[in-house]
């Protein structure tokens, strides 16, 4: 029962986040050059203790789908897979308590907001730096690129954080 619920939630989140990313956020072009990528929320909200291999498959499919719409084959997929692999280490690094409760979701309401902020910041840093390294390797260390990277990162963190304040992604335990 809980399992089929999880699958439905994953599928719904996948479709919603992909649609929003492709039709809204990719067209935002804040100040002409900032492009936030809040679709990585899909990877962030997978339950604690999820198998990393499974997480990487989900991340690959999500990243590849975004790639298809952005004409950037492999770039989002690569950044997402890395984030999926690194997620376990991030969680270990910022853990406040002895252990995470397996099966619950890491959201704004799981622990203190500062814990969630740290989590999102580190995840977005990993994803965005990798993505920009793939996308603009020739000009990566040039100030326009670095500025774009930083501002896009800030926008992504803000959108993920604010979206969590309005919409609670339920895991059925509360």
């Amino acid at each position, binding site marked *: 029962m809980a399992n089929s619920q999880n699958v439905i939630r994953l599928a719904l989140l996948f479709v919603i986040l992909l649609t929003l990313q492709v039709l809204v956020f990719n067209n935002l072009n804040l100040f002409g050059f900032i492009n936030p990528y809040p679709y990585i929320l899909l990877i962030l909200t997978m339950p604690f203790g999820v198998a990393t291999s499974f997480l990487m498959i989900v991340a690959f499919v999500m990243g590849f789908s975004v790639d298809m719409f952005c*004409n950037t084959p492999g770039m989002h997929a690569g950044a997402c897979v890395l984030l999926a692999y690194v997620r376990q280490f991030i969680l270990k690094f910022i853990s406040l308590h002895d252990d995470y409760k397996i099966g619950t979701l890491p959201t704004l309401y799981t622990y203190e907001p500062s814990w969630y902020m740290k989590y999102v910041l580190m995840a977005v840093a990993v994803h965005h730096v990798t993505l920009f390294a793939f996308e603009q390797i020739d000009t990566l260390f040039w100030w326009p690129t670095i500025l774009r990277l930083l501002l896009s990162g800030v926008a992504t963190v803000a959108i993920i954080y604010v979206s969590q304040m309005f919409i609670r992604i339920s895991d059925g335990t509360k």
Partner: protein
Amino acid sequence: MRNFFFFIARNATTIFFILLEILCLVLVMSFNDYQQAKYVSSANAIISSVYESENAVTDYFSLSSRNDILARENNALHNQLDILHQQLRLLRNASLSVNDALPQRFLHREAKVIKSTTNREHNYLTIDRGSNGGVHEGMIAVDYNGAVVGLVTAVTDNFATVLPIINTSFRLSSKLKKTNFRGQLVWDAVFPDEAELIDIPEHAVVNKGDSIVTSGSSSYFPEGLYVGKVKDVEMDRNGGFYDLTVQLAVDFTSIYDVYIVEDLLLKEQKQLEEETEEHER
């Protein structure tokens, strides 16, 4: 051998991770190759139809500014028409045969831009006209002023992908309109309204505001299409050549309509050139 299997079993996740990343890298590499730009995905049917239905909604927001553009273009065409009418009358009076006129060389087809990016190294435009609408690879795209937008690189039945000036894979042989000095127009992936013109020799006289047009030495772009203006004049670090900053004529951040230009006499010209070369041998 047994240890090897143990090693694999213990590190299965990490090995899977490395394999996935290698797959992604292969995808990225194959894409970066200029030749492979053909496989760009947004010209494929499903994704294009998503963008087309999105466009059906967002189209309305830009209607008023596009109306202004069209009105201006209409006005310019009216003026041109008047001039041509007058010239025609003069020609008739001089009893020259109108049939001596040259045949039509370029055919324009309008197309809507349903998807475009400006904030990547490899930017693309997707247009809503494909091989069913007479668009083929190697045709060029211009905007309402006749300024260069880019080159058609991939075509499906109903859509096509345009490789614009603002893609680091793009090279355009251009020249200074006044002095005819030739150089290469390249984009350095910084601003969507600026490109660099390199290889102009230092003995050329260059001023800010000079017009830059296509040189005609590329097999795709005819000579004299407007590209932009010189914005900044600098010397190349190694010396000997200019490194000019060009203000592009096309505003890629708000591009809604393009014209796809077909060269009706291209085949004839190519044939003649080939025959000439064979004679030379």
